[in-house]
């Protein structure tokens, strides 16, 4: 008799719990703020007399962005290499993506990249004092509407 009461009580308890669990629902929300990571070339140093050198790449390393948005990367540079040996001298240069001058590019997913190169006119080298030449550039990075 006691055993039957215990079993009945246990069944009631289980039913009661099941009923309370299914009585309501909980909505859980979690907002992920957009964020991204961009890899850009580290510096702009050119050995003397080189007309064309590899300049690294712009690559999107991480991209948690909203639909309809993209990451825009622009180049800000006076495009003049300065002599690093203390001599006066500037050399104009161009940063290329493939064969066209790079100004800006847009990206939406991680892994997208643009390979860059630097070209210098041979005549510019002829006029320049010897030594290594370098410049620093600034990459303007913005989060914009993809349709802009």
């Amino acid at each position: 008799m006691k055993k039957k009461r215990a079993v009945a009580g246990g069944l009631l308890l289980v039913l009661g719990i099941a009923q309370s669990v299914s009585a309501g629902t909980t909505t859980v929300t979690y907002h992920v703020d957009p964020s991204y990571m961009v890899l850009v070339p580290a510096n702009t140093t050119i050995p003397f007399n080189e007309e064309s050198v590899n300049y690294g790449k712009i690559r999107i390393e991480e991209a948690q962005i909203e639909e309809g948005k993209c990451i825009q990367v622009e180049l800000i540079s006076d495009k003049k290499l300065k002599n690093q040996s203390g001599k006066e001298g500037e050399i104009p240069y161009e940063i290329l993506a493939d064969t066209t001058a790079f100004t800006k590019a847009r990206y939406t997913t991680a892994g997208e990249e643009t390979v860059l190169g630097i070209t210098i006119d041979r005549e510019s080298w002829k006029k320049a004092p010897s030594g290594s030449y370098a410049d620093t550039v600034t990459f303007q990075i913005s989060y914009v509407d993809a349709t802009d």
Partner: protein
Amino acid sequence: MNNNRRKIGIGIAVCACILLIGAGLYLTRNNKQETQESPDSAFVQDLNPDASTQEAKESDPPEGIRIPGYPSITIPADTKDVTVNLMNPEGNPCYFTFTLVLKDTDETIYQSKMVEPGKAITQITLSKELSAGEYPAILKISTAALDDGRAMNGANVETVLKVQ
């Protein structure tokens, strides 16, 4: 018998002297090498004392500079002391210096000291309080090479300060 003991004693003393001389020469040579391997550096880092170490993600050193993007930065209104996350990703070849500029007025409201790769600044004091609203801003990241402090390529990250 006594002669034998004396000879053994002398032999032990000679061996001990040789060992001591050898140890002294070894230590002296090591000190010289350590001195040669630590050249003077003229670059003095002006490090931000509040930067804390971030959890390092496993990754190879980048072939460039990793720049974190901030589509927006949310901060509380009417207070200069705010919490942010201005980080210099692990593996970068340079220190970061952050400057926060309001785009509409070109006003600088915060500038950091140098932040080492793998560290971030989380508590900053703005130059002024901002009332609630949205402020287009630019987070300027200037860089300095780890070894000699020469300027490397930098970035201007456009963002929106959401002041709530």
